Structure formats: C-alpha cells, structure tokens
C-alpha cells in the first residue's frame, strides 16, 4: 500500500516493498531505498544505507502520524497522510485559516482570557494570552469566529498542545 508523506513542504509517495528483519526496501517517489534500519533506543533509529551510517531521532508531534525528525543537524516535520488525515486536511481547508481549536504549542501559564463562551470575535482579535519563561504569546483568530467553548481560565497552567479555546 502506498502512503503520502509530507516532509516540510514536499509531498512524497512511499511504499514498503519488502521487509526481512532489519532489511527493508522502500520506494520513495521514484527512488528505491534498500536500508538496514533498527530502533536502537526509544525513538532513535540507526540506519545503514549503502554503508553510510545515519542516526535518526523521532519525536511524535501532535499525534501518531506526525513527527519531528532530527538527523545530524537538521530537523524535519514529517506527516503520514492516510485517508483520515486527508479528510481532516480538506475539512480544515474548507473552514478557512483557523484551527478549530486554539492550543498552546508549549507549556505555560494563561495570563489573560479575553473571550467567553458564545462570544463573536472579529478576524485578528486576541483570544487568549499565554506566558512561558517570561515571554508572552497572544493567540488570535484569523477570521470572524464564534467562541464555542473556553476551556481554561486566567492563572491556569497549560501543557504543550493543550486545547484552550474551541471556535466555530
């Protein structure tokens, strides 16, 4: 089965052709890769390709299908796109620019909540302000929106990726 894989801005076709222990054959777009691949530590892979040795670290991002992938000095955002992801991506496109959920990408403390359930907000309006390590970040909507549910209050500590406000 062929999958679509999003690497930063590129979308590539990937298919696992064979697997025999550590030895795998993968077709990535029109290139055939024969790799010796092994998870040596949790989330750390050792890969030997044509006798070159690579260390690749995977950190799961938002969900099991999206990764931050670190190679020697580089970092890639990689997303595996299956039917469900496609559906969600299309739906998101239809909705315009906003995510349906405003989440803090990093842990912090909610400094200000500027809306309440049922509020109508205008494009560009700030919804919530979060402080982490003495820096404040403002979270805004990009379109006119209805505030469906506010999930945090001022003073709350939020973890990374914790939903704070649901909009419609």
């Amino acid at each position, binding site marked *: 089965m062929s*999958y679509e894989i999003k690497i930063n801005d*590129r979308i590539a076709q*990937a298919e696992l052709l064979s697997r025999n222990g550590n030895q795998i054959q*993968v077709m990535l777009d029109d290139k055939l890769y024969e790799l010796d691949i092994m998870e040596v530590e949790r989330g750390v892979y050792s890969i030997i390709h044509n006798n070159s040795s690579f260390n690749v*670290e995977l950190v799961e991002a938002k969900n099991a299908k999206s990764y931050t992938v670190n190679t020697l000095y580089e970092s890639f955002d990689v997303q595996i796109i299956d039917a469900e992801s496609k559906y969600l991506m299309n739906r998101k496109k239809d909705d315009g620019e906003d995510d349906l959920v405003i989440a803090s990408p*990093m842990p912090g403390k909610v400094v200000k909540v500027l809306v309440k359930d049922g509020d109508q907000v205008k494009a560009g309006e700030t919804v919530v302000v979060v402080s982490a390590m003495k820096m404040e970040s403002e979270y805004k909507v990009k379109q006119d929106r209805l505030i469906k549910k506010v999930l945090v209050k001022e003073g709350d500590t939020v973890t990374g990726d914790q939903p704070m406000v649901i909009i419609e």
Partner: protein
Amino acid sequence: MIKKVLVANRGEIAVRIMRSCREMGIKTVGVFSEADRSAMHVRYADEAYFIGPSPSAESYLRMDRIMEVAKQSGADAIHPGYGFLSENASFSALCQKEGISFIGPDPYAIETMGDKITARKTMIAANVPVVPGTTEPITDLKKAVEVIQEIGLPVMIKASAGGGGKGMRLVKEASKIVEAVSAARSEAKAAFGDDAVYIEKYIASPHHIEFQILGDKHGNVVHLFERECSVQRRHQKVVEETPSPIMTPEVRARMGEAAVAAAKAVNYHGAGTIEFIVDDNLNYYFLEMNTRLQVEHPITERVVGVDLVKQQINIANGLPLKFKQEDLKQSGHAIEVRIYAEDSDNNFMPSPGTIKHITEPLGLGVRHDGYAYEGYEIPMYYDPMISKLIVWGETREEAIARLKRALYNYKITGVKTSIPYLHRILEVPAFVEGSYNTHFIEENQQYLQPRTNCSGRCEDIAAITAFFDYLTKLEKLQPAVPTKELGSSWKDFGRKRSILRL
C-alpha cells in the same frame, strides 16, 4: 569548619556546588519550589526542603524561608550560587547576623560594587581604569566641548534623562563636536524636557573580557586570568573562552593587576569577577564587578586547574589561599557553550517541555555541567538553560574541533535547543580566526541562519524512518500471532507467567 552547606539555588549550579561539597565530605541541603520537586538538585542533595510556590519571588528569593531551613537543618553555611540571592547585600548581612557563614563576600563589597556610580568612584580612587566620561550631567555647551576634548574622540553623547536612543549622538570628528552636542541637547529637551547630557568615550569595537579573582579573609588576592565573553546576544553571553584570542602576556599581567587592585579596594573575599571593556588596541576599562561565581567559571577551572567552589568554601572557612600569583598559570584552551531550551531559529523563543531523550557527549577533554534527565520537565518559571558544555584542548584550534565533535554527539529531544545554533557560531570565520567583538552575532547573521548540511538523501531517510516507525506502530495494533503449541505444561507455565507479569 563548614560541615553542612545549604545551597540556595537550583538547576545546574546547585548540582555543581553540591558535587564539590560531596568531594569535601560536606553534607548538602537543597531547597525547592513547587515546580522543582523532581529537579536534580533535590535528588542530589542529602536533605531537601520545600520553600514555596514556583515563582522565584515566593521561593528562591525568600530570605526568611531559606534562613529558617538553614536553622532547621543545622546548616552552618549557605552558598547562593549565581542569580537569585547571590548579589544581595541584605542576605549576606542576614547571614552574618544569624551566625551562618555566607559563601560569598560581605555586604560592604556587594553594596559598593552593586552600585554603578559608587563602584566607578571606588575604582578611580584605586587607579583602576574606567571608561572615560562624565559622572555628573552637563548642561552647558562650552563645558561639554571641553570634556570631549579631554576624553578624546570618538565619544558618545547621551541624554541624562534619556533612553531608547533619543538624544544620543556618536561623534568621531572634531569638526562635528559642537553640532552634535547641540543636536543631542535639543533632542533631549524635546523628548524628556531636560537637556542635560552625559559624555562617554565611545569604543567602536568593544571586547568583553573579564578576570576571575579569589581573595581570602587575610587580605590576599590573586587573579586566575581572563575569560573572553564577547560572543553575546542581547547582553547574554553565549560562548566563553580562555585565554582570550586577542590577549598578550603584557596586557594580561597589567589587567590582572588592575583586577586584583579592584578587589582589594573593597576588601574583597571570596570568588569574584572583574569585567572589563577592551578595545582593539587592548586599552581596557573597568565595567563592573560580579561579586559571585559566574556561569562561565568552569573554563577558568579547566585551564588553571583549580576548583573554584572548593576555594570559595576554604575562604569562607577562613583559610588563607594556598597559592600565590606566581603559582598560577594557564594551560591549554577551554571553551564553554550554554545549551538553552529555545528555538534559536524562531526568534530564540523559549522551549520549555519534557526531555524525552538525552545523550550526553563523552570522552577526552569534555566536561558537562547539567541537571536535566530523561523525563524531566523543564519548568517555565526559570532560566531556560539546560546545561553547559565545556571543552579543553591543547590549542584553541583543537578546543574548537573538540567542541564541534561534542555538540555533534549531544542529543536532546523533547525540547528544542540551541545546539545547532552554537554549532553554526563555531564555524563563523571571525570566530575561527578569534577576531570578534561584542557585535559578533549582529554582524554575522548571514552565517547564523539555519542551513542544510545534508543532501536530499538525508531528507529521504528522515521521511522513510518516520514512515517505518508508523508502519511498525500500526502492526503492533494487529492481534498477536497465536503462540506455538508447546505441550500442556508449557502452556500452563506461560499462562502463569503472564499472570505474574500482571
């Protein structure tokens, strides 16, 4: 003699201090805020006491709570580390009053050096060069011109009431003096309603070079040579090295003497640092004194071969310094980099979070002072520094190569770190040549942008690895293959074992 030290700090420095205490057979007492229950210093200490909520003002800065713990635990000394209470004269005084040894200078030295104006006057009195300039506001054009001629060009004129660049003028040519003073004054008047100005020598290519000093309670003071700290971002040091690549033996000797004189001027005891601003011709001027241990003290320790924390404790114990100036020398080259939890490529945004995986660099010439561990969540309340990586080499060239090798092998996942950014700094031509000043980061932006070090193959392999991991996870969700038929006893055993394993 000190038998139990309360370390009134957190993070890497708390652990670093406790290490030296342990080597000296001294018991350690840690204190912690709400956010720090799982921090390494709590785990490393012999005893640990909770002192309050996460914000520093409610915990690590609470002198009363800390003093209470000192008494409760029977600690006979307090080490303040750096930051927090380390340069707080009242805390030093409180310790004095309560009969607990403060491992640092007395309140007089902290106070004198803590106030810029008093410090400047004290240095002038001690014949330590300061940046030439006026200490009193000038309200008169003629006087201003006189002063400028006395100081010598170039100078910077600054609005006395000012800030934000308003009323500031740089003067490089004699013909422009009058014009510049007038312009600065009228701009200051318009902006702040006050046309008084200060005049200061302008140093076009400033180097930040500091000297480590140690003074005992018997009046002996020595210096442990310089540290070059010109690689700074927003006045925050990023890379430090010793010896300074621009230093000469003659200037080093003279600056060292000035540093010792500066410390003696305030009857200093303990470890301290005299910061100088140095121009390209190696003219040096006293900037300020840090009356505590510096973040970058390990490079001095490595090149001079002295444990500065142990020296601090010996001094607090009233022991005389066991070495004289002539016993000390620099050997080889050391560099320190500070690893921050930050997204260096995204405006240096702090990146708190949980460390998922950490691989520390090892081997010859590598020292690592950290406090993070796998599963540790870097709290958002404090400085986002994770660790310091210190390398030593026979030569500067070897030290740089070694640092690159160590950074290459230093892996932290879960949070973004400054490691890739630091690696880029080490490859900037001006850094490699050792010819840089405090404008280094600003002036070398083109070298400091994220780059692609790896061919398309790298990207492909990154994609394939994620893909493979995903497929493996999917596979694990399938029902397991039925186990082989192994006879009834074996099946019984298997069942029993799986029960035992919960």
